[in-house]
Each structure stands twice: as C-alpha cells, then as structure tokens.
C-alpha cells in the first residue's frame, strides 16, 4: 500500500482486510491520487484515477439532469470474476473518491458496508487543512518527485 497522507493508511488497510478487496485507489474529485493498493504500474494508477473521477463526474451530471438532488451514491460495475465499486465521500479536505476492485471472495454488499465505515473513519481522522502553500517553480519538480515516490516507491 502506498499513501500520500499517512492518516489514510489505517482506514484503507481495514477496508481492504475486512472487504477482501484486491485493489483500492483513493483520490480527490479532480483525480489526484491520495493512496493506492494493488497497482504495480504508475501509469495504471494515473489512468484509473482519471477515469474514475471522470465516471463520477459524468454520473453526477446525469443525476443533476434527472433531478436527483443528492446524486447517485455509488457506481458499481459487476463482471463475472471481478467488480468495481466507485463512490464519492465528503472529507474535511473536500470531496474524495474511492475506487475498489473486488473478486469473488468479496461482494458488492461487503464493499459497500466497509466503504461506508472507511469514509466515516477518513472524515474523523483528517487533520485540519493547513495554510495553502505557494507552489514555486523551483520546488515543483522536487514535490512532484516526492509524491510519486510515496505512491509508487523509488522510480
């Protein structure tokens, strides 16, 4: 498991353990990766994050068009051998998205149950947001490298 925010680690580990999920990705609603488990290639993570954020944005807009005030709770793709759970949740850091891939050893119901608990734990564990730092050109490359190293290890 790789996490950018250390306080996300324990709740995510619990979600994976209790739901028997295989792969998980936590990101902001704009697709910035916060934590991941199960991905081996950084390109896959980036693509999954961008696609996941895009799918939720699309369904959110669809919900708005249909007059559903609170939007859709989650999007589930159920295949023969594996399924994907995709849902947004509110945190003190803004709206985040979770993407969970599960196999036949788990179920939609089980992921739904423990994802709700995960979202509660994240909301409770999130430290208050500090002052927004100015992104300087000279520090950008280093900060980007640090983030990538945290998510994917040495590269």
């Amino acid at each position, binding site marked *: 498991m790789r996490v950018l925010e250390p306080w996300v680690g324990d709740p995510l580990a619990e979600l994976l353990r209790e739901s028997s999920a295989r792969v998980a990705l936590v990101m902001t609603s704009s697709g910035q990766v916060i934590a991941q488990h199960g991905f081996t290639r950084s390109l896959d993570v980036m693509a999954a994050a961008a696609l996941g954020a895009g799918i939720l944005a699309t369904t959110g807009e669809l919900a708005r068009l249909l007059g559903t005030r609170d939007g859709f709770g989650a999007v589930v793709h*159920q295949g023969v051998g594996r399924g994907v759970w995709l849902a947004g949740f509110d945190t003190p850091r803004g709206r985040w998205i979770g993407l969970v891939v599960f196999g036949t*050893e*788990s*179920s*939609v*119901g*089980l992921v*739904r*149950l423990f994802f709700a608990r995960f979202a509660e734990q994240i909301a409770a564990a999130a430290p208050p947001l500090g002052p927004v730092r100015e992104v300087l050109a000279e520090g950008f490359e280093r900060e980007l490298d640090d983030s990538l190293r945290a998510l994917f290890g040495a590269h």
Partner: protein
Amino acid sequence: MREVTGVPGVVGALIISSDDGLVVAESAMEDLVTANVAALSAALIARATRAAAAVNPSVPTTMQFVAERGAIFAVAGPAPLWLVAVARPDAELGRLRLLLRDFAGALG
C-alpha cells in the same frame, strides 16, 4: 416474510442474494440495518461454502449462528437467494427453523 417476523423474538427476515450480498426483500424492525446483515450473511455463506467444499464435496443449505445476544438462521433458496432471519436469544428457534425451511422451499 411477515409470518417469519411474526415468530416471537424474531427481529428481521430477509431474502438476500449471496452473490452480491444485497437485500432482495425484507421485513425487519427499524433498528436492524438489513443492508449490513445481508452483506455479512453473504460473506459467512461464501466462507461456509468454501469450507464445506474443502472437507467434502457438498454445498451447505442451512446455516445457524447462535451467539450470546442473538442468532442468525440462513436457509438456501433457489440460487443465489438465501432466506435469513435474525432472532433474539429468547426466540422460538425450533419453530423459526421449520418456518424458514418451508418458506425457502416455497421460494423455488
């Protein structure tokens, strides 16, 4: 379903899909979170099925979990449906078991 929940001590009866752990139909008291019961029951059913397959080539059709503060009974209906009942420890468990078997048979 109402007949099952009519048994004294039964707090909820559900038809669940063991494949996805979701509620198909339910009749339960308000404080029973049936979605959670369905998810966890389906997980137990899946594990029991794997355990049964490991020790002998048969598929479980009935499961019973009795704990200090309550009990869960699950009876297989037509796949992937299971009938699940949640009961207090003082429930009429024998009558409940018979009723669940009859009901599960009727589901097919």
